[in-house]
């Protein structure tokens, strides 16, 4: 079972955050302690899907990176809202969210000064140890940047999302190459937002030929997901929807890898 899983895409809006959030919940429901960290410091967002109010966050990942708190102080227990009531004494299942700050000043500071990615690495490992996590999901900023590469370098598994779109196809090749050079042990290519009526076998073939690796899932473009508009956890809202079924299967595959 992989400990650290990061989700990437070369271009934005491929569905990283929604896929990661749902995978995290489905994974926790297997009876695991799961963390989700938002390393998209420039444009944070995954907290929205969990229904987390950023104003209620005393500390965020940013505070840790600037040395203002320990990383565990920026972790919030989301178990009740996302999985349901768990006895207070029960260690599993648990779901923790480590959000990035939405304050303009904080985002500006990161853009202006950058930060030590090695410190992010330390934090991620402190988090896994300190919260005794079984699995940590890392949501990332789209494209190639330092924290993206760092999270690839420390991940046991990489989920690469792309849409059936020529720009996504081309760009993803770059990420695939970098991931190979960083020797990521497992790579899961996920084609998201696959419209109805498309030749799925052909699509799969094309992607597999382009990257020389298996496609782990084709996730359907869903009207309900569009309407949900990141306003909740899809797999909780529509547990029997084909998209939820596919996500569940993907989480099974991830966990048994």
């Amino acid at each position: 079972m992989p400990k650290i899983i990061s989700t990437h895409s070369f271009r934005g809006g491929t569905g990283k955050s929604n896929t990661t959030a749902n995978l995290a919940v489905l994974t926790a429901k297997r009876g695991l302690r799961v963390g989700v960290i938002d390393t998209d410091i420039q444009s944070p967002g995954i907290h929205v899907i969990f229904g987390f109010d950023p104003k209620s966050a005393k500390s965020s990942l940013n505070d840790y990176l600037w040395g203002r708190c320990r990383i565990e102080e920026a972790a919030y227990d989301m178990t009740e809202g996302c999985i349901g009531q768990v006895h207070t004494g029960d260690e599993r299942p648990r779901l923790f969210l480590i959000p990035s700050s939405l304050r303009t000043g904080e985002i500006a500071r990161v853009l202006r000064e950058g930060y030590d990615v090695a410190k992010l690495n330390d934090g991620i490992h402190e988090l896994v140890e300190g919260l005794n996590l079984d699995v940590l999901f890392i949501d990332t900023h789209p494209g190639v940047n330092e924290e993206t590469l760092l999270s690839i370098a420390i991940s046991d598994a990489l989920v690469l999302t792309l849409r059936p779109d020529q720009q996504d196809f081309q760009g993803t090749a770059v990420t695939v190459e970098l991931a190979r050079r960083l020797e990521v042990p497992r790579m899961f290519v996920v084609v998201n937002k696959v419209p109805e009526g498309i030749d799925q076998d052909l699509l799969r073939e094309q992607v597999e030929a382009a990257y020389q690796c298996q496609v782990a899932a084709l996730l359907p473009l869903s009207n309900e997901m569009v309407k949900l508009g990141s306003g909740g956890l899809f797999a909780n809202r529509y547990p029997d929807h084909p998209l939820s079924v596919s996500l569940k299967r993907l989480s099974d595959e991830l966990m048994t890898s």
Partner: protein
Amino acid sequence: MSTNQPAPPIDEVGALLGRMRSAASPVRDVLRELHERLSKDDSGEVATYIPELAKANPGWFGLSICTVDGNTIEFGDVSQPFTIQSISKAFVYGMALEDRGLENVLAKVGVEPTGDAFNSIVLDEISNRPFNPMVNAGAIATCDLINGADHPERVARMLNMIRTYCGREIHIDHSVFLSERMTGHRNRAMAHLMRNFGMMGEKFEESLELYFQQCSILVTASDLAVMGATLANAGVNPKTGERAISADNVKYVLSLMLTCGMYDYAGEWAFRVGLPAKSGVAGGIVAVIPGVGGIGVFSPPLDAKGNSVRGVRACTELSQRFGLHCLATGSGGNALLEALTARRR
């Protein structure tokens, strides 16, 4: 970075990936744990012979490793400036070799370890040479060999040499320099004695000034790691690609560091740690892992032999942990290089 920016060219990609690997390296955990644990060791005494050194915070502790491919892993007070002190002796010796050639340098300064203290006024009875360039007498005689049309030019050349090793602009701490000069009676006496024996030239008084200046250069633990890595990298600074010393002369500097670099602890250091190293009274230690990288440590409290307590412990543990002893047959420093680039499992 915007999403539609093209991928950087391939060599830059390699450097970037290298940086990411070292940022993700499991060695970080080892170093962080070591730093945390040794921080709690508050034994030792800060040097007090001049007021500037006595002011040092005994809690300061910086630990930095720089590899020959220019990747750095560091923890703690790695940017805190302190005076280089005796660590400069190794580098100025290298410069004298560059300026004068091996035989001319050997004619003035020996390469024999001595059981005497670093400030002893003992010269070789037959040749009148100081025993080696790591004791004060030898370092002062070595300074006399630094080329330059006049004193300012000699100072500038020496600063430039240290700058090349560090890869950044460096400065002299003037109040330390003035204190060293005012209280350096013993060093002054040695210079006169060596002048008397003809081991120092006419400019011996300026050379003594130069010696006080070289000891007062401000560096950081990060700098020491890069300086060590430069020696480990056959004389080329791995961060800047600039050559600081010829590859031929590196081996002479390193062998002196191995046999004479740690004051009266040099023998046991070579035995236990097995790394060419040099320490200074301000609490710095530079250690060289040939072909692999440099270690820079800064922590002011000193043990009875005058070496940084935390510095000695850190180097000793790193050497044992990663099998860095340079006379060990078998893995050598490879374990560290491998660990530096290994994926965390």
